[in-house]
């Protein structure tokens, strides 16, 4: 029996994570067509320190609904209108795309409300533990008063802003640069 409650160390998910996690248990639809809110088609693209696509990563997202409420029954099965959770493996070009809605504002520290954001986990071969980041939406007025963005050096904040896809209504693009030039801001959660 364990009697020391120091948390178990993380280890990499390795190159074959698809087998256990995404071959049969992907969740591309974070919010179904019936969900209230502004539809968002969010494409991630994961790049390594050489700017090369990462074709063997897994991205998980967790977000509030359009009223700023977190779901308490996400699951991976069924066709719940709003799930709040999503999980996809990246393709050969390092990308994956979730169908969702723009989340509402969630309370932050003190008297603040956070700007709409999506919580992101990245797992991959070469990542000994999960990386956490957040997707905010470029052009959102509330970004200026977001208490978490305020913790990020101003010159790095743009790495947390998804940009509208000029070729697709409701499309947003978020690059995750793991290392080096334009490195995405990652959080110690």
């Amino acid at each position: 029996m364990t009697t020391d409650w120091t948390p178990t160390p993380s280890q990499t998910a390795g190159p074959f994570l698809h087998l256990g996690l995404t071959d049969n248990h992907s969740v591309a639809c974070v919010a179904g067509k019936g969900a209230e809110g502004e539809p968002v088609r969010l494409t991630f693209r994961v790049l390594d320190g050489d700017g090369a696509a990462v074709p063997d990563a897994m991205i998980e997202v967790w977000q509030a609904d359009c009223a700023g409420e977190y779901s308490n029954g996400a699951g991976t099965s069924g066709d719940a209108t709003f799930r709040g959770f999503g999980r996809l493996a990246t393709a050969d070009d390092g990308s994956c795309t979730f169908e969702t809605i723009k989340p509402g504002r969630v309370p932050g520290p003190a008297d603040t409300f956070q700007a709409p954001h999506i919580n992101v986990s990245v797992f991959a071969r070469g990542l000994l533990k999960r990386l956490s980041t957040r997707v905010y939406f470029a052009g959102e007025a509330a970004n200026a008063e977001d208490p978490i963005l305020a913790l990020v050096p101003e010159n790095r904040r743009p790495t947390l802003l998804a940009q509208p896809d000029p070729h697709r209504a409701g499309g947003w693009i978020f690059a995750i640069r793991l290392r080096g030039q334009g490195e995405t801001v990652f959080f110690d959660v």
Partner: protein
Amino acid sequence: MSSSLIQANDRDRDKDKDKNPRRTFAPFRRHEPGTQPDYLYPAYRATRLRAPSQPLIFLPHTLSEVTGPVFGHSDIHPNDSDLTLQHAGEPLGERIIVRGRVLDGDGHAVSNSLIEIWQANAAGRYAHVRDNHPAPLDPNFTGTGRVLTGEDGSYSFVTIKPGSYPWRNHDNAWRPAHIHFSLFGPAFVTRMITQMYFPGDPLFAYDPILQSVPDEKARQRLVSRFDLETTRPEWALGYRFDIVLRGREATPFEGKG
């Protein structure tokens, strides 16, 4: 329970939205130095291009971090916890039982929580298109399982002892036999993926993935224990693997926010 407290507070939110939203929840504890790997561990080559070079930004816990997806019995199928029953025939190799409990940082059970596992077969080959190790696939073994923990945090899988396999990290590199474990726990911040090893594996000292955990005691938590009590006579050896997820701070985070 803190989680129901959050939900109860959520219900009051709309009417309070324009006033001070009162929230009470305990943030999760941070890790002790050395008990988790760093991102960059050059001996594990793939970290060199994938580990961030900038320091992480400390994120105070908000509702976004203390909530997380909840899974239920509808997410699990009957043979998900017995990896030897998923095909027409029995897989080759040494049948084993892996059993343990999922606990939080105070030793309390983490109940009704999803565990997902995946592993190589007895020959050290994954049923994955990108695994080209020249060892045989087993038509009767996929090597994936899922289970929800019980009320007491317990879980159990029946599987086949995975084989060691070579990888190209360095000259003559071999991974010690392991099973990948994926856990959610109650919150976004408790999400964790790890690997379970088998006691006494001679490859431990040569494996940069295991050795990336600086603290020796913490590293030992990744090694399962042979357990005679779990072992079933005339049928299968048993291994015990308890997993500890992060616990909450003792004092709730007061009030607003």
